[in-house]
């Protein structure tokens, strides 16, 4: 009982921290995009967290944790289970309610990743539908394969897939969904020249973006720290150390690497590098030594810098770098479990790669279907060119984010 209480306190704190990541995303995304779309971004972020929790309560939780099932698809019924909730022997690390809420915060996170990538051109209605279907189906089904005890978790007889806190199950799923969405949408007006040369479209408020990154880092204490699923002192504290060192290394290496490439101290690369380090360590945060965490994080940071350039080459337009961070660094982190740390082995690596691939195929297919549904229902996913140029805040909300902002030269 004492231990359950302590464990549960830790898990509730971690739940709060993962919730707080939504402010991180909100700040990050709104700062790195143009001012004329700010209200729209705020609206989408509020929608994601509120809708996410409700949908997860209605069905997502029981789709992701169906209990005994065939390993591919199961559903434990609608709503939450007040009987299970009453049983304090439910788990020694947390109560039923804590379990639901912690997982619910994760679910909303996957949808938030999409929000950043599709910013500045998606119809509000289309985003809401796309995000809803993602949280209701894609995320919990993939999640059930591993965390629900499905076929990922027992991939071969000896070796199961390993994804500690969700480099693949959360970040890559969100990243794939974002990728499919931006293929549907196309690039923003003016993002690429007729001859394909990329143009920079700088954001409007870097201080809040920077705050977003630091808030996300803090939130990751809960994201990874809570994924221990108890307050086990050795493991939780190791996880916080590997998480922080990976973030630090990701940031430093991304900044140095982008300095070497572009001769520029680019604070946005520093920021994305930190996030790349965090996403990278997420799959194996409990398996790495400090030095391994630094290596995984550093490579995560570099992956992000390269992925951003790669996306530009492909003429894929991701305003905030969400895909570089969550998809690319997420894949890297998942594979890294086979290369570094306590589980490193060729077999493990192969299983990691296989599950990364299966997840990719499933997400691309299902998100494509969702994309078609959304397009159908909403009459296309994208706002008109004129609305885009005028900004979504005017077009979709009739408001502006800084309506009364004035200059006060002293």
């Amino acid at each position, binding site marked *: 009982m004492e231990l359950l209480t302590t464990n549960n306190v830790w898990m509730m704190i971690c739940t709060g921290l993962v919730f707080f990541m939504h402010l991180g995303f909100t700040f990050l995304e709104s700062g790195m995009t143009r001012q004329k779309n700010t209200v729209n971004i705020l609206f989408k972020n509020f929608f994601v967290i509120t809708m996410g929790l409700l949908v997860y309560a209605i069905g997502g939780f029981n789709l992701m944790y169906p209990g005994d099932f065939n390993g591919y698809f199961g559903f434990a019924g609608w709503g939450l289970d007040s009987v299970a909730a009453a049983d304090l022997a439910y788990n020694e690390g947390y109560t039923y309610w804590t379990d639901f809420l912690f997982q619910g915060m994760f679910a909303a996170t996957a949808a938030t990743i999409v929000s950043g990538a599709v910013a500045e051109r998606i119809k509000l209605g289309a985003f809401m539908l796309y995000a809803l279907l993602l949280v209701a189906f894609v995320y919990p089904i993939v999640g059930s394969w591993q965390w629900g005890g499905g076929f990922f978790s027992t991939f071969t007889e000896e070796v199961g897939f390993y994804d500690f806190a969700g480099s693949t199950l959360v970040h890559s799923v969100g990243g794939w969904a974002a990728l499919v969405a931006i293929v549907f949408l196309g690039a923003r007006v003016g993002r690429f020249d007729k001859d394909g040369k990329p143009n*920079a479209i*700088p954001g409007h408020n870097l201080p809040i973006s920077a705050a977003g990154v630091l808030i996300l880092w803090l939130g990751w204490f809960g994201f990874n720290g809570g994924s221990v699923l108890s307050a086990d002192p050795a493991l939780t504290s190791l996880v916080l150390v590997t998480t922080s060192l990976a973030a630090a290394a990701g940031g430093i290496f991304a900044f140095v690497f*982008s300095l070497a490439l*572009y001769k520029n101290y*680019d604070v946005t*690369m520093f920021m*994305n590098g930190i996030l790349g380090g965090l996403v990278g360590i997420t799959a194996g945060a409990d398996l790495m030594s400090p030095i391994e965490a630094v290596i995984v994080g550093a490579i995560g940071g570099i992956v992000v810098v390269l992925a*951003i*350039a790669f996306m*530009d080459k492909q003429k894929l337009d991701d305003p905030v770098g969400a895909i570089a961070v969550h998809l690319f660094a997420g894949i890297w982190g998942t594979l890294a479990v086979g290369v570094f740390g306590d589980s490193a082995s060729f077999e493990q690596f192969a299983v990691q790669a296989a599950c990364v691939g299966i997840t990719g195929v499933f997400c691309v297919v299902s998100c494509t279907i969702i994309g078609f549904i959304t397009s159908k229902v909403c009459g296309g996913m994208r706002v008109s060119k004129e609305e885009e140029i005028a900004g979504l805040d005017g077009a979709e909300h009739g408001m502006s984010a800084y309506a009364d902002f004035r200059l006060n030269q002293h």
Partner: protein
Amino acid sequence: MKRIEAIIRKTKFEDVKDALYDAGVTFFSYWDVTGIGNEKKGHVYRGVSYSTSEIQRRLLSIVVNDEFVQPAIDAIVKAGATGRVGDGKIFVLPVEDAYRVRTGDKGGDTLN
């Protein structure tokens, strides 16, 4: 009466202001504008290098009686030039009348 419209570098503003004071011009209004001109500025943002010909400048609008026109222009040129492309321009426009809002007074005297 003329209206001198000087478009200068923001970094030279304090110097120009001081020079104008020395030339006896102590009343004017200014605001920031974006200039499209000869100067180009290089940037890198998230790995995309882009050069822009749009530069932040400050526009000074100075309405003066005719005898102050030349001194003011000389002051601006002297204090505002760095010798590099992009130092800006001065335009002189005719002004037909001036009023003081406070009193409704009219004419060159209202320019203080």
